[in-house]
């Protein structure tokens, strides 16, 4: 259970003969339906974010973004992503190395476990940490006695974010490295390279675009996660409010310009992610997409 594969598509070159395509009116209706659907469900929500953010002019927009609570929400979101994305990158590379380069028992099961966070509701992803670290949690007493704060603080937010973004890098790299096989590394090793050198100079350059692709998706989710973080954050303004949580608070206070101003930054991030993703697929599609699809 996971996000479906994302890849780029090359146009068909065959001529469209009448027998294997729809008649012109049918084609127009089908295309019209698709366009209206995409416009209503994808384009309009995106436009409305920027429209509402700028509803009271550019001055109100920049003012909404310069408040101290907004600033600290932006800082926290960047901090959380800066911790959780690299950790998941290390895990992703490590898991891909073990799974793609070796044959061992239980490999398929391990791969399934890695995808597990995708099939769990974000709220449940947060809940499991509350059950573990909360006041009534399994470790709650012990943590309190030792003065360690995890829940309703930055460590809890980081943990919940790592949980929901856990599979992104790994599931990008595993099929890629499996497809590339062991030949290059074996050649490097036989020429006297150490394991590290083989990884650093052979494997990493081979998978760099796929890795970047995974990092991109992982980062977008890390910065945008709402449900899991909401459960563990405690919503303390200026301290444990990430940008998506700040959007919620401002919105519930009927501060539409403020909420949509912060939302516009996140929407901007989403657009940048989509553009980079599309560029990667167009330029390096063969290296990242050809290997995908189970």
């Amino acid at each position: 259970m996971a996000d479906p594969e994302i890849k780029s598509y090359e146009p068909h070159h065959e001529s469209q003969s009448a027998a294997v395509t729809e008649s012109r009116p049918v084609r127009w209706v089908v295309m019209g339906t698709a366009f209206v659907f995409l416009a209503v469900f994808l384009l309009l929500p995106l436009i409305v974010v920027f429209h509402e953010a700028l509803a009271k002019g550019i001055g109100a927009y920049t003012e909404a973004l310069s408040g101290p609570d907004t600033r600290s929400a932006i800082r926290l979101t960047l901090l959380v992503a800066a911790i959780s994305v690299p950790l998941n990158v290390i895990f992703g590379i490590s898991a891909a190395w073990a799974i793609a380069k070796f044959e061992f028992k239980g490999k398929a099961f391990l791969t399934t476990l890695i995808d597990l966070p995708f099939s769990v509701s974000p709220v449940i992803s947060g809940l499991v940490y509350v059950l573990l670290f909360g006041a009534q949690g399994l470790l709650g007493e012990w943590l309190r006695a030792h003065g360690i704060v995890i829940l309703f603080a930055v460590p809890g937010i980081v943990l919940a974010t790592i949980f929901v973004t856990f599979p992104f890098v790994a599931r990008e790299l595993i099929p890629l490295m499996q497809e590339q096989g062991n030949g290059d590394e074996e050649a490097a090793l036989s020429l006297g390279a150490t394991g590290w050198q083989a990884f650093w100079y052979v494997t990493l350059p081979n998978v760099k675009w796929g890795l970047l692709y995974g990092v991109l998706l992982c980062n977008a989710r890390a910065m945008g996660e709402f449900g899991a973080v909401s459960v563990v954050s405690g919503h303390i303004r200026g301290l444990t409010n990430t940008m998506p949580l700040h959007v919620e608070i401002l919105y519930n206070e009927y501060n539409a310009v403020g909420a949509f101003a912060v939302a516009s930054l996140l929407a901007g991030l989403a657009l940048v992610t989509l553009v980079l993703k599309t560029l990667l697929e167009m330029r390096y599609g063969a290296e990242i997409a050809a290997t995908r699809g189970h």
Partner: protein
Amino acid sequence: MTTAPAKAGWRFRQPSVIPGFGLTLGFSLAYLTLIILIPLSGLVWRSAALGWADFWAIAVDRRTLNALKISFGTAFLAAAVNVVFGTIVAWVLVRYRFPGRRIADAMVDLPFALPTAVAGIALTTLYAPNGWIGQLLMPLGIKVAYTPLGIVIALVFIGLPFVVRTVQPIMEEIDKEVEEAAATLGANRFQIITRVLFPGLAPAIITGFSLAFARGVGEYGSVIFIAGNLPFKSEIAPLLIVIRLEEYNYEAATAIAAIMLALSFLMLLVVNLVQTWSRKRYG
């Protein structure tokens, strides 16, 4: 791997000249265990510790049942809508050439990239009675925001790329010659689509449906803004978990979470069975 160990006896892994197996597998397992497995088994342990009677009492509580019904019902509807329109979108992207196709294709991934809270407030603003779409629907007597219909709209947004991105690659692979053969044998376009193309796409459509459905059942961020969150009417199960947590009712939160997980896994199982059946049937 299947034949060699018979002679060599049971072996955990095949020999290899590549180093680093212990390090990478060890680290991966440790990280997986700490971040995912221990916390998740904590949930299982806590709900097992509840005892059957308490668990059952929470499960059949009217509010719990209604929340589960709303979550699963709206997710089902939204996934069904996405199967229809997602397949049409995939068809248009694969088969038709038009200016801006690349952009339309890239846009399909927007729900993956856009934070759910942003989607939530944007959709609510659009469908509110004074919103761009809401005010068009108002005279028709259709209320979307703050009703279960709003939940469906949010879940359609969230689920769309799951259907498109599972169906699209399979459509790409369809061999035109099959269609041409059907056409030369006298089938009309409608027959070709329903009899020739659809059976090949069915497994992908089912997968897309189940992915969108599973995501919809657990979705929280985009829904809570547009739902109105009225108990018994438009309160989704993930929200009820949050409410119970805020009441420090860990037992109820745990039980509802356990039920959701169990139902989701059950559904996955059913989908896998249907998949196998449809592969055999149309394979």
